[in-house]
């Protein structure tokens, strides 16, 4: 991560109204300490967890209560200033970067507002850390199921914005499957409630529209989540293979049995080695070409049978060893290794890009072989660690950004990988969001009409396009974008 010096020029005309007077008005709401206006205080907010993009906000404001968020958004609405909501800054798509506009940090809103164990739900503020929510409801034998690898740091608000996934989403579904209701402040300052806690709602699924809107539709003030009961039994297996192909075949074989693992993760050799040299060393065999981390859970009855079936399948497909975690300590260790793998990439090189493509599971062996070829052709170091069960790939490319030639090769390789995934029938993002990083690839999978339809949807929530400007949809490719909303023909998603 670096290039704090590469702050690009503010892109929005409203920037001129982001001045000391605005800073003072915001300080009157949140307190002087909670408004950062000096460039030296804003440096750390120029990046999220994808340290390849840097955009300097003009100002950052950190409300501490719901009412302060409301007042801040209304102040920004009154003067027409664009803003970017940010959680913990652990996103992997550059989605929370504010290019010369106002950054609204929501990390201070960490209150669990209510827990309803009987109805298995909880209402939280957006800054509650994912793992803190599960901790808060653990005493009831409940947990919050979506578990992004960054769960020790990322916030529920950020999870909602990105429709975050995680290893256990294979069986339990991604964020959108776990959000019941949202209280949202629209960029205009109007407060609306989406969804509800009493079952299926009449009318359109507006929660579904908001979850994954990447901060472009407004800010969630309160989030009501569905909680899940802790499974009666859990078994975690680690199988290692001498070829990536064999590991990929095993994934298909397991899924074909009809057993739905709670998680089915693949880790390649380069990733194994990075993890094993870190404090999260989990005992993954460093000479294996790939390892599968497989978790089975559910009622105790039948669980052992599933474990036997999966173990047999692994061996039949060429697994060298299959290890079953003996206890919770070993199970935690196996998972910590997987979940911290992304952070361990700093051991490979100083900079990092991460992809998030999804391919049909049956194409995994073929796509992985192609990625390997691309990495060799471009002489870049690709480490694969991904959710194999749902075909969600995370090729990490670690590189040295002070090397212009290597940086250029990385960029070429990224685009080639993305293209080959799309050609294989896949798509560009599984769970990290489009943000800034994948905006260039949107045209690979969407027609101008589809992109225009997205812009139209956005206008419902944010007609002035002030919330998280410049993200998700490449505006230049929306054919009708420059026409007035009234003159625009209706468009449908392709």
């Amino acid at each position, binding site marked *: 991560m670096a*290039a704090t010096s590469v702050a690009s020029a503010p892109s929005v005309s409203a920037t001129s109204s982001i001045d000391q007077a605005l800073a003072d008005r915001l300080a009157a709401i949140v307190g002087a300490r909670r408004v950062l206006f000096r460039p030296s205080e804003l440096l*750390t907010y120029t990046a999220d967890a994808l340290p390849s993009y840097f955009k300097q906000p003009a100002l950052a404001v950190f409300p501490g209560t719901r009412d302060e968020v409301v007042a801040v958004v209304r102040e920004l609405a009154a003067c027409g200033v664009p803003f970017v909501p940010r959680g913990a800054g652990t996103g992997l798509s550059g989605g929370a970067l504010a290019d010369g506009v106002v950054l609204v940090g929501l990390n201070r809103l960490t209150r669990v507002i209510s827990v309803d164990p009987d109805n298995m739900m909880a209402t939280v503020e957006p800054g509650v850390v994912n793992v803190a929510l599960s901790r808060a409801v653990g005493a009831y034998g409940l947990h919050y199921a979506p578990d992004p690898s960054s769960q020790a740091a990322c916030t529920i608000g950020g999870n909602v914005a990105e429709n975050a996934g995680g290893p256990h989403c294979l069986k339990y579904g991604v964020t959108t499957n776990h959000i019941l209701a949202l209280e949202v402040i629209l960029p205009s300052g109007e407060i609306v409630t989406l969804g509800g806690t009493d079952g299926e709602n009449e009318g359109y699924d507006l929660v579904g529209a908001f979850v994954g809107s990447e901060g472009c539709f407004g800010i969630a003030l309160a989030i009501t989540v569905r909680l899940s009961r802790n499974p009666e039994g859990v078994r975690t297996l680690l199988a290692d293979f001498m070829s990536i192909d064999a590991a990929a075949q095993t994934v298909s074989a397991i899924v074909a049995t009809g057993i739905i693992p709670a998680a089915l993760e693949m880790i390649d050799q380069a990733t194994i080695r990075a993890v094993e040299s870190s404090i999260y060393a989990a005992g993954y065999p460093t000479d294996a070409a790939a390892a599968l981390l497989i978790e089975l859970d559910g009622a105790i009855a039948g669980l052992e049978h599933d474990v036997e079936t999966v173990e047999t399948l692994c061996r039949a497909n060429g697994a060298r060893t299959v290890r079953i975690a003996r206890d919770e300590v070993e199970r935690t260790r196996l998972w910590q290794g997987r979940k911290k793998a992304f952070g361990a990439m*700093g051991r490979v090189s*100083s900079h990092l890009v991460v992809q998030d493509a999804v391919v049909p599971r049956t194409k995994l062996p073929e796509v992985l072989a192609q990625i390997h070829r691309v990495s060799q052709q471009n002489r870049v170091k690709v480490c694969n660690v991904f959710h194999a069960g749902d075909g969600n790939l995370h090729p990490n490319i670690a590189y040295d950004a002070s090397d212009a030639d290597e940086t250029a090769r990385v960029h070429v390789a990224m685009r080639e990988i993305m293209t080959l995934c799309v050609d294989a029938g896949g798509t560009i993002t599984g769970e990290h969001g489009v943000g800034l990083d994948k*905006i260039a690839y949107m045209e690979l999978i969407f027609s101008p009409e589809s992109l225009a339809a997205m812009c139209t949807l956005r206008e419902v929530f944010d007609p002035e396009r002030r919330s998280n400007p410049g993200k998700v949809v490449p505006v230049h490719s929306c054919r009708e974008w420059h026409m007035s909303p009234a003159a625009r023909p209706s468009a449908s998603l392709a």
Partner: protein
Amino acid sequence: MSTPVVVPRERALPDSPLAKVQAGIDACVHCGFCLQACPTYLTLEDENDSPRGRIVLMRSLLEGTLTPTNDSVETHIARCLGCRACETVCPSGVPYGHLLEATRATLARSRPIPRIARAILAVFSRRSLLSLAMFGGRVMRATGIARLMSGLPGRIGFAMAMLTSTDRASSSSDEPGEYLSRGNGTRGNVSLLTGCVMEGLFAGTNAATERTLAVNDYLVARPAGQVCCGALHAHAGDDEAACELARSNIAAFEREQCDYVCVNAAGCGAMMKEYGHLFADDPEWHERAKTLSAKVRDVTELLSVAGPKRGGSVPIRVAYDAPCHLLHAQRVSSPPLDVLRAIPDLELVPLVESDVCCGSAGIYNLVEPETSNVVLDRKLENIEQTNADVVATGNPGCMMQIGAGLVRSGSRKSTVHLVDLLDRSYRRAARDSDGKRGGRAK
């Protein structure tokens, strides 16, 4: 369209201590996994007061975007406790403690270390001044002046409360029962670092350390010529003074020819284990420093290897608060718990965030009182939520910081070094067997 940027690699501070740790800075990929481990981020809620925020500032110094005299740099680097909790969660292995010390040493070249810090460091550098200060402290403690003043606002009142708490802490020597502190000596020769504050204000704990080690079959000596370990100086960026003190200690401990150097103050132990790193660029001292560092053990490491032997019943509820420089810097996690679990009838009660700093951090509580208090308040809240009778820990700074907080809040709880609890257990065993057989135990 956005593309990843090419990062220029000019060095703004080519010969600085910071430039030497560039590789450590490069290891940070900004993942943010450190945020929830950082006490100043948790309490101040600004990423500039988090490890990754501070690393951005460090990098900016090297890139020349910010200068060493920049106020933001000064503020946020000074506000770091140096607890190194970020290191035990960092997947990339960023050596944050080293980066922090290198940054402070770099900044110290451009602007002087704060006056109050310099005054304290000067005292710790000179044995005569230190003895005088510790004597003064004991007088204030014994006469009750410290207790009287412990309610005063500001630094003075807090310092007096710290002093007062040391009276409550050294309670094991009040325990009746004496035991013959001798084992068979087969576990090796141990040289004890007596320490500045430990010997000055916790002499009873030093004596308890010697007794409990002896019972567990170590031969213990106190090498002459030892001085302050230099940790406070290194943390503040005064690496010259730190090196000078370290050289004296290396020479003093070499003369003893011991198997282990035992330290019962986590901060000092962490420092001595890093003497090798301190002299990385000094061919004359590097090997000697490394050899000494390899022998350094926390007292609980030595005791846990030996069992430790069981003593008598100590039926109290104990919350263990891990000293950061034991848990995070030395990565010693289970030995202290082994020691506590070996004490019959002692009930170990869970303490939420026992792995988070208490805000003591060497002289931090006197230099950055405001932040230190916010961090301490969170610790005190967690302690009050337990039903513990005492808080056991293994570092004088933590004992005094938490102790002062408890004194000032009127709590009935107090702090204790866990070696004192083991010592108490041995005394009770001796007393019990005295009662039965009329003779001495062990």
